[in-house]
C-alpha cells in the first residue's frame, strides 16, 4: 500500500462515526435516492444513484466496523478499498454530486447521504483523488487571500468604487462594530455592487459594519475538496479577524457553501464555539425588516419573478422563509416554482462541480432538471441568494439560449428599493 493511499484510508476511517454506521446499516438498497438526484434523473444512468457514490466508504465501514465484515476480512473474503476503486469513484464523488442533499430529505430510512459524500471526499482528497482545479484553488487560497489568488488589492479598489457610488464612508478593519461583512471572491470579481448594496442598507438601518482585510473571503474550497486542514485554516482567518475586531455578528454573504463552512462546519473545524454570531446576509436583512430597520420605498418590481433556493442556504441551511418575506416587499408578481423551498432543484454547479472542468459535460446535462423547473414558470427574472448559483444560472441559461431571463441577487435588489 502506498503512503498516499494509507493517508487517504486513515482520513476516511476518521470520518466513520455512529451516524455513518447507522446509515449504512439501515440502507435496504431501495434506490429511492436516485429519484431525488439531478444527475440520475437527467441521465437515467444507475451509477449516479446517490448511495452508490458511497461504495468506497461503505466497504471500509463493512470491512472494519462490522463484526461480520471483520470476520470476512480475516478470512480474506472482504473486498478491499484500493487505489483502483478510489480512481473509479473519483468522478462519481466529485463530478456528479453537488452535495445538494435532496437525497438526504427523501431517504425512507433517514440516511444523510450528502453528509456522507462530504465525508468520503476527506478520504478521496487525502489519497490524491481530488480534482485538479479544487486542489489548485486550495493552494491559491492557502497562499493568498482567495481561491482566485490574492484579492486584497481588488477588494480595496471595490470598496473605493462603492464609496464613490454611495457617497458613504466604508471603513476597513474597524474595531467594535456591529457587523463584519464577508464576501465571496465572485462578488469581488463581479463588481462593487454587493458592497454598495450593503453600505446603503447598513446606513439606513443605522448599523456599524466593516470588512476585514485579514479575513474577508467567505468561500472555503476545503469544504468542497474535503480537506479539513485547508478548511480549518481558511475558517480560522475569519475567526481571528472577527475576534480581533470584536464584532458581534459576522455576515456570511450570498454564497451557499460559505454559509455551511462559516456557520455550521467552522466551529467544529477549529474545535470550539465562536465568540460571535454568524448569520447569512438574508437572515440579517429579514431581521432588519422585522425590526423596522429596512424600509422600502413602496415601489414594486412588476417583472415575473421566481426565487431559486440555494441548497446550502435553504435545504441544508434552514433559510427559506426569510428571502420570501423580503421578496414580497419589493415584487408584485412573485411566482414559486414547483419544488420551491426545501426540495428545490440544485443549480447544478454546487459542491465544487462548477469549478471542475472535467464535470462540464455532465453538469450541462444535469442542469436539465433546473431548466424544466424554470420553464414551467417562465419567469422574466430569477432572484437568488448565492453568488455561485447566480453565476451558474447565468452560464447555463446562456448555453440553453435562455439568457433573456435575468438573474439577480436578493441583497442588491433590496438595496434598489430602499426608502430615501
Amino acid at each position, binding site marked *: 500500500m502506498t503512503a498516499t493511499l494509507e493517508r487517504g484510508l486513515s482520513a476516511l476511517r476518521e470520518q*466513520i*462515526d*455512529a*451516524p*455513518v*454506521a*447507522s*446509515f449504512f*446499516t*439501515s*440502507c*435496504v*438498497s*431501495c*434506490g*429511492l435516492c*436516485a*429519484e*431525488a438526484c439531478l444527475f*440520475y434523473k437527467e441521465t*437515467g444512468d*444507475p*451509477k449516479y*444513484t446517490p*448511495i*452508490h457514490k458511497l461504495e468506497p466508504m461503505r466497504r471500509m465501514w463493512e470491512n472494519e*466496523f*462490522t*463484526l*461480520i465484515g471483520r470476520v470476512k476480512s480475516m478470512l480474506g473474503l472482504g473486498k478491499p478499498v484500493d487505489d483502483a476503486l478510489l480512481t473509479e469513484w473519483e468522478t462519481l464523488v466529485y463530478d456528479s454530486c453537488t452535495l445538494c442533499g435532496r437525497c*438526504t*430529505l*427523501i*431517504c*425512507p*430510512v*433517514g*440516511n*444523510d447521504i450528502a*453528509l456522507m459524500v462530504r465525508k468520503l471526499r476527506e478520504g478521496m482528497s487525502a489519497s490524491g483523488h481530488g480534482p485538479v482545479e479544487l486542489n489548485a484553488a486550495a493552494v491559491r487560497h492557502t497562499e493568498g487571500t482567495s481561491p482566485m489568488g490574492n484579492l486584497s488589492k481588488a477588494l480595496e479598489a471595490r470598496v473605493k468604487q462603492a464609496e464613490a457610488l454611495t457617497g458613504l464612508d466604508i471603513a476597513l478593519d474597524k474595531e467594535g462594530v456591529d457587523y463584519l461583512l464577508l464576501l465571496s471572491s465572485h462578488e469581488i470579481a463581479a463588481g462593487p455592487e454587493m458592497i454598495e448594496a450593503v453600505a446603503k442598507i447598513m446606513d439606513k438601518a443605522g448599523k456599524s459594519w466593516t470588512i476585514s482585510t485579514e479575513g474577508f473571503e467567505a468561500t472555503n474550497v476545503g469544504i468542497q475538496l474535503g480537506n479539513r486542514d485547508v478548511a480549518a485554516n481558511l475558517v480560522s482567518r475569519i475567526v481571528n479577524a472577527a475576534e480581533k475586531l470584536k464584532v458581534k455578528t459576522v455576515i456570511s454573504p450570498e454564497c451557499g457553501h460559505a454559509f455551511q463552512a462559516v*456557520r*455550521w*462546519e*467552522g*466551529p*467544529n473545524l477549529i*474545535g*470550539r*464555539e*465562536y465568540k460571535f*454570531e454568524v448569520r447569512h446576509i438574508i437572515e440579517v436583512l429579514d431581521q432588519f425588516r422585522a425590526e423596522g430597520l429596512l424600509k422600502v420605498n413602496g415601489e414594486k418590481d412588476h417583472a415575473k419573478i421566481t426565487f431559486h433556493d440555494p441548497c446550502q442556504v*435553504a*435545504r*441544508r*441551511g*434552514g433559510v427559506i422563509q426569510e428571502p420570501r418575506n423580503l421578496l414580497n416587499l419589493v415584487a408584485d408578481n412573485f411566482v414559486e416554482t414547483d*419544488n420551491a*423551498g*426545501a*426540495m428545490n432543484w440544485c443549480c447544478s454547479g454546487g459542491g465544487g462541480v462548477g469549478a471542475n472542468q472535467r464535470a462540464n459535460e455532465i453538469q450541462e446535462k444535469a442542469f436539465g432538471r433546473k431548466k424544466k423547473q424554470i420553464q414551467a414558470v417562465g419567469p422574466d427574472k430569477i432572484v437568488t441568494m448565492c453568488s455561485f448559483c447566480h453565476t451558474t444560472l447565468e452560464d447555463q441559461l446562456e448555453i440553453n439560449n435562455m439568457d433573456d431571463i435575468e438573474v439577480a441577487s436578493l441583497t442588491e435588489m433590496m438595496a434598489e428599493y430602499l426608502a430615501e
Partner: protein
Amino acid sequence: MNNPYFDFLMWVRGPGFNIALVILVAGLLLRVIEILLLGRKRDFAKPKGNPVGQGIRTIFTRSVARKGMVREAPVTYVAGYVFHLGFFIAFLFLGAHIALVKSLIGLSWPDFNKALVESAAALAVIAAIALGYTRATDPVRRALTKFDDWLVLTLSVLPLVTGYIAVNRVFGVDATLWMAIHILTAEALMVAFPFTKLMHAVTFALARYYNGSIQGRKGAES
C-alpha cells in the same frame, strides 16, 4: 395420534425457538452497541433549531413520503408500505402470536379477526413479489442489489406463506408439519436478523434521529 412430525414441532417450539431468540437478542445488542460505541463528535455550532426534538420527530415523520415522490417510484413506495403494514399486522395481531409474546414477556393486546390478518398477510406477499420484481427489472435497484437483499426478501416472505398454509391446511397439507415449518422459517428470520439488512428494522430509528438532529440544529427541514 402418533403424528410423525410431532417431535419436529416440539423441537422448533422449544430448543429451536430458544436458540433463535438468543441469537436474535444477543446479535441485535451487539450490532447496536457496535454502532453506538463509535459515538459522534460534539457539535460546536450554535443551534438555530432544536436538534433533539427534531431528531425524535423525524423518526416518525420520515414514514410519510415527500410530496410528489410516490409518483417517481410508485411500485417501491406502494409495495413498500403494503408489505410493511401487512407484515406487522400478521406478525402482531394474530391471536396465536399475541399468546406467544404473552408467554415470553407477559404483555398482551387485542387480536384482529382471522380474515383481516390473512388478508394483510396475502397483500404483504403480493407486495413482496412486486418489490422483488422491481429489484430484478429496474436498473437502479438491480445495480444496488446484492445477495443479502434477496435473502432478506425471501426470509421475510416465507413465514407469511408458511403460516397461511399451516393455518388453512392449503392443499390438505399436514398441519403439524407445516406449523413446524412455519415456526422454523420465523426462526430463520430471527437468526439472520442481526447479520443482514433486516437490521434496518431497528437502526432506521437511529438513522432518522441523526438525520433529523443534523438538519434540526440548522433549523432546516428533515
